């Protein structure tokens, strides 16, 4: 069963792409919250001096990578959880009855979810630049893409893991509000985590997005709390772990 079927992976990926470009209003809607965060916090705190942000970095340059991280977190978790919709509307059975291994299904879905999340992250980058985010250069931009893919894969897989354990949609808002939102707020997307009290900061260190946002900041702006290699290593480990967990829980989940 554990064969990898490239054609099937492509088919699943392509489906996500068609849906992404077709459901423009939904994409637009899901981009509104990060855009508002970026615009209002960016303008609102523009001239406020926030402690622990290096002198040479203005708040918008600090904030924009965090908001990209937020966009990736929300859209990729949503992408992973969207398996619930496929189950609800029966399409999952169409996928499951095909002669395709579950591993291929996981890879195809994840590839699709990650691509759409990264595209949304890149879209949010544009208003960031308009508002004054200065990107350090092409290598930094390319490096940020690596971090985007890692962040999206991690949370897409976590979403899939949750969806595999859930029987219906009732847990969806619970996860969005009690997992995704805290992960976002703890990650240091909006302010340096060194401003948090120690006990809360230790929670931040457990949040994979902390290293994702720090990595994005280091890659795009050139300022980070941790060394980039450290961010990368932690995030890569989280990503592998989440991917394994998602694939495993999906593998053992009931079709019906």
């Amino acid at each position: 069963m554990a064969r990898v079927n490239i054609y099937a992976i492509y088919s699943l990926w392509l489906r996500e792409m068609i849906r992404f470009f077709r459901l423009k209003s939904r994409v637009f809607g899901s981009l509104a919250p990060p855009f508002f965060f970026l615009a209002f916090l960016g303008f609102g705190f523009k001239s406020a001096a926030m402690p622990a942000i290096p002198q040479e970095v203005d708040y918008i340059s600090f904030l924009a990578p965090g908001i990209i991280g937020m966009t990736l977190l929300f859209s990729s978790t949503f992408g992973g959880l969207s398996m619930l919709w496929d189950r609800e509307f029966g399409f999952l059975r169409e996928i499951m009855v095909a002669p395709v291994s579950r591993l291929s299904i996981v890879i195809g879905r994840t590839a699709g979810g990650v691509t759409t999340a990264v595209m949304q992250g890149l879209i949010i980058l544009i208003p960031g630049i308009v508002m004054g985010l200065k990107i350090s250069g092409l290598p930094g931009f390319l490096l940020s893409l690596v971090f985007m893919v890692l962040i999206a894969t991690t949370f897409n897989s976590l979403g899939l893991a949750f969806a595999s354990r859930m029987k219906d949609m009732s847990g969806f808002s619970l996860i969005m509000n009690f997992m995704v939102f805290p992960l976002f707020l703890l990650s240091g997307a909006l302010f340096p985590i060194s401003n948090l009290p120690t006990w809360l900061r230790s929670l931040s260190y457990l949040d994979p997005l902390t290293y994702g946002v720090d990595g994005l900041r280091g890659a795009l702006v050139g300022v980070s709390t941790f060394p980039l290699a450290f961010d990368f290593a932690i995030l890569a480990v989280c990503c592998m772990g989440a991917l394994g967990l998602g694939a495993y829980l999906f593998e053992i989940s009931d079709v019906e």
Partner: protein
Amino acid sequence: MEGAAIATSGLTMRFDDFTAVEGVDLQIEKGELFGLLGPNGAGKSTIIKMLTTMLRPTAGGAVVWGHDIARERDAVRNSIGVVFQDPSVDSQLTGRENLDFHGRMYGMDKKTRQERVHEVLELVDLTEKANVLMEDYSGGMQRRLEIARGLMHHPLVLFLDEPTLGLDAQTRRYIWRYILKMNQEEGVTVVLTTHYMEEADHLCERVAIIDQGKIVALDTPENLKDLIGADIVTLEVDDGVTDEQVHAFSKFDGVEAVDRSGSTINLSVDHGESRIPEIVLGSCSAGVKIRSVSMHEPTLEDVFLKFTGKKIREAESSGAGMMAAFQSRMRTRRH
């Protein structure tokens, strides 16, 4: 290739406290149009789910086109097409995109896919709707597209689980026509489940009648109806009629069996229409007051009644509690 299309032996599915399918032995021939007929909750869908590798049997087994459903799941999946009882399309994709998705999942290359999409759309008369989003399809059109999709990859066996459930009479007839057409033109072996008597009667070459997880009868619709033999004359009589008076009916010429439930008396009568006058006169002289008389030729409903002692409607209501428990566990039906 020798052998049957599908052979099951002792196929059984138990859930914690409820046996959905018990010891089913079936042999379905290649090219056959085979029906599983029974009330909701009889276990038809569970049989289909096991044969399509969506559920693993708790005991017994089955072979689909030479492949074991438990050990060679991919080979089974490659040989079959399935049209599920509930919708299973992506409503945000067009008809063509749904078919294309399906073709790719089954490893069909672009050229083969394009040709086949054209063929199957033609078969179900949906060519003009190919580029319309599924959410804009009517229920019947969606069902037709699902049938087309089930055929897309040239399956050897096509499973249709309640293909006309919830469709209006006219759409149902269309679906019947497509099912017959693909069985004849594409030569695909078809296994369908239904709880509509006339559907099984009209479509199927052979029918297995299923009640409470077991096969209670299996034959061609004609042979099954011949088991009832004669016509059924139904008398509505006054409540006060005694069993002796009812018994007197069996002495009439041509009356083969008498069956009473409350104020309704069913008589199996050869050449029913010519016997009705005698029956009415006879019952008057025996003092039985008749309120109405009707007659029909035997249907599969009568066969079901004969083998299970109840009408299919009654079987559904008595099975409803069990079915509710079953559904909450299985989460199969969605509305």
